[in-house]
């Protein structure tokens, strides 16, 4: 008998659409309704042949051999204890319960705890540290906003249902004309599919958003005459036209994305955007929101802030207190500088998404464990790969949407092959660490690193056939 499960929240992007309808039968997913193409793919992936059903360990010939959870947990626990400064990075697709459990493990391990924001909206965190975050929940945009700006954000691709659920098209309480009542402005160096849905497109010169924001702020502060004729490739008259739309708006909202965080200046592109929002509030209501990537990438920021006071890049190696300073304690910098001696890649794929010049310094030098439901690039070079249940498909839990609203996820099928959830896995790693410590295993400061198991010596490169 097939069963229809309603109001299922989608484990793909930060929009966390919670209106999916999933049809299942005998633990298999038959159909997914309401999801975008990417979300649909996640559910189908769960039922696909060839999933990893057991922890596996890399062999000398580069193949993998199944091991038990106990063996995988013991390896991970020893690695965490022995390493002088292990890095636990990822959590893009982990629920908050798993992230909280990981926090306890990291504290016990004296690890650096970091999440994907480190290479994504980390710059936004830096900006929020410096200027704050005048924001709102997505319903405010839906119900009130009549001017919506997508700045350096390609929602059409990265958050496929964002525009229809929140940003552009929905009819809300005070916005019952839907998109006809909204002015939509996109700022991007490329004419993206998001720009195509907009009333106005500002083709900013790549890397010069900061200058354009400054010009906007000058207009808001009344220095119209002093604005140069062209700023960042945009003619002054166009800037003034957009500023007029903003000033006439009843409720203005800015969504910003990687275009700001990934280009020169990083956090300052965001903090000047936030300062523009402060300026606009003198004239009319305005809020801003980071287009967070993964469905629960806001989660670790929230959870670790209450555990340690910092959202990411948390160095717990001192044991006495937590320290955070991105640029030093951020995963990519740690990798670049050779500052960690063990690596757990969890719920992400550093192998695919770090610059290879950063990742190779981890992948070729330090013991590595990947915790992820699927085979990803990091898993293909890890010493141990531990599969876990897919959040939102095989286990529920709390996840934070891009606006930090907690969304309660549901399991629609049981975990494949009885694999563990992230939370169960981390709790068992913690228990094993405590056991090992009572057995006298410790980080003893010997210069050689905890020896990799004999079977894990890196495979020698053969010349290409």
């Amino acid at each position, binding site marked *: 008998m097939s069963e229809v499960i309603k109001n299922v929240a989608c484990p793909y992007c930060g929009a966390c659409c919670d209106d999916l309808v999933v049809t299942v039968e005998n633990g298999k997913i038959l159909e997914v309704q309401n999801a*975008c193409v990417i979300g649909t793919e996640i559910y189908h992936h769960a039922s696909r042949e060839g999933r990893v059903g057991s922890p596996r360990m890399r062999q000398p010939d580069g193949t993998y051999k199944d091991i038990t959870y106990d063996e995988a947990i013991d390896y991970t626990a020893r690695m965490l204890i022995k390493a002088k400064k292990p890095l636990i990075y990822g959590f893009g697709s982990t629920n908050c319960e798993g992230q909280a459990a990981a926090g306890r493990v990291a504290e016990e391990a004296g690890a650096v705890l970091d999440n994907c924001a480190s290479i994504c909206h980390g710059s936004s965190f830096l900006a929020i540290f410096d200027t704050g975050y005048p924001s709102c929940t997505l319903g405010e945009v839906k119900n009130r906003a009549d001017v919506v700006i997508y700045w350096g954000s390609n929602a059409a691709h990265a958050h496929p249902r964002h525009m229809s659920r929140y940003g552009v098209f929905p009819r809300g309480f005070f916005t019952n004309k839907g998109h006809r009542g909204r002015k939509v402005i996109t700022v991007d160096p490329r004419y993206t599919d998001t720009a195509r849905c907009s009333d106005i497109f500002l083709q900013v010169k790549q890397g010069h958003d900061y200058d354009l924001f400054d010009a906007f702020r000058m207009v808001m502060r009344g220095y119209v005459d002093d604005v140069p004729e062209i700023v960042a490739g945009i003619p002054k008259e166009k800037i003034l036209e957009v500023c007029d739309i903003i000033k006439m708006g009843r409720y203005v909202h800015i969504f910003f994305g990687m275009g700001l965080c990934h*280009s*020169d200046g990083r956090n300052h592109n965001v903090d000047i955007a936030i300062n523009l929002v402060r300026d606009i509030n003198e004239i009319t209501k305005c809020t801003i929101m980071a287009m967070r990537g993964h469905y629960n990438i806001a989660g670790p920021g929230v959870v670790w802030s209450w555990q340690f006071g910092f959202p990411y890049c948390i160095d717990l190696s001192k044991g006495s207190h937590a320290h955070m300073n991105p640029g030093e304690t951020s995963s990519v910098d740690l990798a670049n500088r050779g500052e960690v001696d063990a690596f757990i890649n969890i719920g992400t794929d550093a192998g695919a998404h770090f610059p290879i010049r950063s990742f190779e310094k981890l992948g070729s030098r330090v013991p590595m464990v990947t915790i992820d439901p699927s085979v990803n690039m990091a898993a293909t070079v890890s010493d141990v790969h531990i599969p876990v249940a897919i959040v939102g498909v095989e286990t529920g839990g709390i996840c934070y949407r891009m606006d930090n609203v907690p969304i309660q996820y549901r399991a629609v099928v049981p975990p494949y092959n009885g694999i563990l959830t992230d939370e169960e896995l981390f709790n068992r790693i913690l228990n094993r660490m405590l056991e090992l410590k009572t057995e006298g295993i410790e980080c003893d400061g010997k210069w050689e690193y905890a020896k990799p198991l004999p079977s894990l010596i890196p495979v020698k490169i053969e010349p290409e056939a």
Partner: protein
Amino acid sequence: MNALHLNMVTQRAVEEGEAMEAGKTTQKYFDVCTVIEMNADDIKAMEIPPNAIVKVTSECGEVIVKAIIARQTCPRGLCHMRQSVWANQVVPPRTQSTGEPQYSGFPVTVEPALDARIVPAVELVQKACNKWNGKLLWPM
């Protein structure tokens, strides 16, 4: 045929997102990510046909991909690669001490390499990590 010096951005595309969720070892992921999106006039200026194979070189590496006319228009001088294993072969790891690599806005040289082989993701990553044993364990 000419080489071009362009400004590169690497970002998400829905095709890449969908393929990624299907699996990074799949043919689908390979097909949608091994491309560099360029302005049609830039491709013309290189004197290559669209969809020709090119070599993209940055300050820190190189990668072989197909040059296509951008699905989402790039102005001249700007090119785009979908964030992926291939894009990250050339993304500079420098972070300006913020933790974030230079994913967008770095100079690249694009030159024709019509006979070059586009390398699968696993091979690229395993080679970089000194863990390549000569065969793909995850056939596409």
